[in-house]
């Protein structure tokens, strides 16, 4: 991998200037490329997510080749954080101070996002989240330079709860990894599902990195729940699903996942068929724009886009539109103003960037893991689509009306 993935619009730039463009565009060209910094977890245990961000950026760069923004080429600069918040801040600071980026995105972990975005007002850069789900980023820890394009964790829990409110299942067990995301999502789910007059019959929080879910599986089975709400980090979810399948528990207690992602489906395979949950971006969304995106993605990378591939691509596309609208990529205040209350026609549907907390209001999806002979692995089939205003929490909170 080369250090900088230079995605130059050299042809466009030369063509445009040679056509005798207005003076202001010539000046913009003289300012150099628009740099987007991506301090992503490209190594270590969370690298599968950082790599999704990178894949999306690669495809986006290719799509941008003949366009540019405001006549300037786009340049992506990647740095590897290894999934560690201290390294993330260090790399982000380097991107800002040395490379002069004004936009940071592609950060994987919520803990990294919290640390980096807290510094963004001081650095005067915009932080765009396309992966981070922690509710606090648009609530308690909100700052003006932070924008969240992706579906948040509470929104995912909400989509699941809305679906389950109508479903015949009545009793639920909740199993969350013992850290912020697991705890918060289980709490959110618990409050919503009890409001829907259903029952939580047990909760448990296995440590991150649990190898053996035997004891938890035993408890789940004994609780006689209809479904188990799972909020486990990627690897742990894979292990749980396989072990639950080996115990035969998946037939008795339906796995319900806040995030139903392709990474799990590829690793677990058929043992997961029948699981339901929410997906931040299911690649099976049936719109012309999305079908085209999936096709281009598959051509470039040879696989189908997972959740963060899609969300990152949408974020980048929206960011570029916002920069065009603001007319500048250097005056961050103008970009922030242009982004607030703006709309975007995304792969999943319509997005609207709320001014009060910079959360993008977007559709939520309840999906089911099904087998389809056209694909080499199980895929997410959309069971229900919920409009943005039903799944997005109240401003600056993690609660729903």
């Amino acid at each position, binding site marked *: 991998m080369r250090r900088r993935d230079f995605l130059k619009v050299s042809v466009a730039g030369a063509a445009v200037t040679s056509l005798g463009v207005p003076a202001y565009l010539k000046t913009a060209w003289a300012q150099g490329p628009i740099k987007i910094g991506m301090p992503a977890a490209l*190594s*270590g*245990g969370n*690298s*599968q997510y950082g*790599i999704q961000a990178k894949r999306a950026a690669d495809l986006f760069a290719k799509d941008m080749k003949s366009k540019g923004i405001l006549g300037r080429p786009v340049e992506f600069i990647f740095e590897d954080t290894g999934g560690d918040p201290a390294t993330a801040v260090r790399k982000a600071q380097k991107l800002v101070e040395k490379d002069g980026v004004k936009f940071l995105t592609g950060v994987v972990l919520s803990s990294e996002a919290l640390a980096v975005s807290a510094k963004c007002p001081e650095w005067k850069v915009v932080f765009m989240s396309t992966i981070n789900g922690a509710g606090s980023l648009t609530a308690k820890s909100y700052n003006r330079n932070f924008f969240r394009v992706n579906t948040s964790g509470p929104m995912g829990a909400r989509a699941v709860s809305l679906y389950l409110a109508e479903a015949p299942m009545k009793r639920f067990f909740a199993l969350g990894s*013992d850290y912020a995301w697991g705890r918060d999502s289980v709490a959110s789910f618990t409050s919503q599902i009890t409001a829907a007059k259903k029952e939580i019959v047990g909760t*448990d*929080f*296995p*440590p991150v*990195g*649990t*190898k*053996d879910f*035997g*004891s*938890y599986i*035993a*408890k789940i089975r*004994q609780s006689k729940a209809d479904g188990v709400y799972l909020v486990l980090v990627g*690897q742990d979810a*894979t*292990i749980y699903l*396989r*072990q639950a399948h*080996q*115990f*035969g528990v998946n037939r008795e207690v339906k796995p319900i996942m806040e995030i139903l992602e392709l*990474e799990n489906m*590829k*690793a*677990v*395979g058929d043992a997961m068929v029948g699981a339901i949950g929410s997906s931040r971006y299911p690649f099976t969304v049936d719109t012309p724009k999305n079908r085209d995106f999936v096709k281009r993605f598959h051509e470039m990378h040879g696989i189908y886009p997972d959740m963060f591939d899609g969300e990152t691509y949408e974020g980048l596309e929206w960011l570029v539109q916002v920069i065009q609208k603001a007319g500048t990529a250097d005056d961050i205040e103008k970009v922030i103003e242009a982004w607030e209350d703006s709309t975007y026609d995304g792969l999943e549907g319509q997005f609207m960037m709320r001014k009060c907390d910079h959360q993008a209001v977007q559709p939520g999806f309840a999906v089911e893991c099904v087998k389809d002979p056209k694909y080499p692995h199980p895929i997410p089939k959309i069971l229900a689509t919920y409009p943005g205003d039903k799944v997005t929490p109240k401003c600056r909170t993690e609660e729903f009306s």
Partner: protein
Amino acid sequence: MADVLEQLLNALALAGLLFLVSAGLSLVFGILRVVNFAHGVFYMLGAYLGFTTVALTGWFWPALVVVPAVVGVLGALLESSTLRFIYRRPPIYQLLLTFGLALILEESIRVLYGPTAKGVEPPPLLQGAVTLGALVYPRYRLLLAVLGCAVGAAVWLFLRHTRAGLVIRAVAQNSEMAGCLGADVARVRTLVFGAACALAGLGGVAAAPMTTAYLGMGIGVIVDAFVVVVIGGLGSIAGSMAGSLIVGAAQTWGAYYLPETAMVIMYAVMGVILVFRPWGLLGEEE
């Protein structure tokens, strides 16, 4: 009743897995006096190679033999090209060398296999569950318990009742003397290291159908293995067995009855044991 039996079997299965991983670690310390930080990565390598074997041949059982052999050879090669030169130095150097080797191997595995976890199906004989009265229990887990016992017995018998085992123990007790008496100390060390890595690889293959092969597997297991070995006493196979049972039980029942302590229960147990016996249950006073 069924619940108690289920928990017991879970504890035994986990203990079997832990023993496979920690036996090698204990041997390497007992005989080479080296704290092998790369041990977890050999375990991970075993799991990934198990995946490859099954993917290539469609058979699982051969993997139980082939993979440990491959991992063992790799371990022996690494030992003879790096560790061998620094035995005379203070122990911290050997420890850190293995740490460096762990970094190299772990990242190499990532380069070869990519970041997605690899699932391994158990062999058809061991798929599904067996019904024991009211209890339905996965067949594959029973294998782990049985394998752990079998390997433990085999290693112990080897060390106690064969000539080669005698030589190994002699080198452990006093390598210079053993050398004077004609033992090829360097070769013994290489073989023991290789055998320990093979055991770790076997642990990995055995674990893969239960946990999948994934990056971070090595880091995840190495601390558990250290705790087991320290509880049992470094250098003692019987100690590793005892340690595995204790840690397996603590983690299984801890997760069930005291879930909030799941993160630390194994350390608490270790701490308590070391307070009363600072060299582990069956370890030797230094």
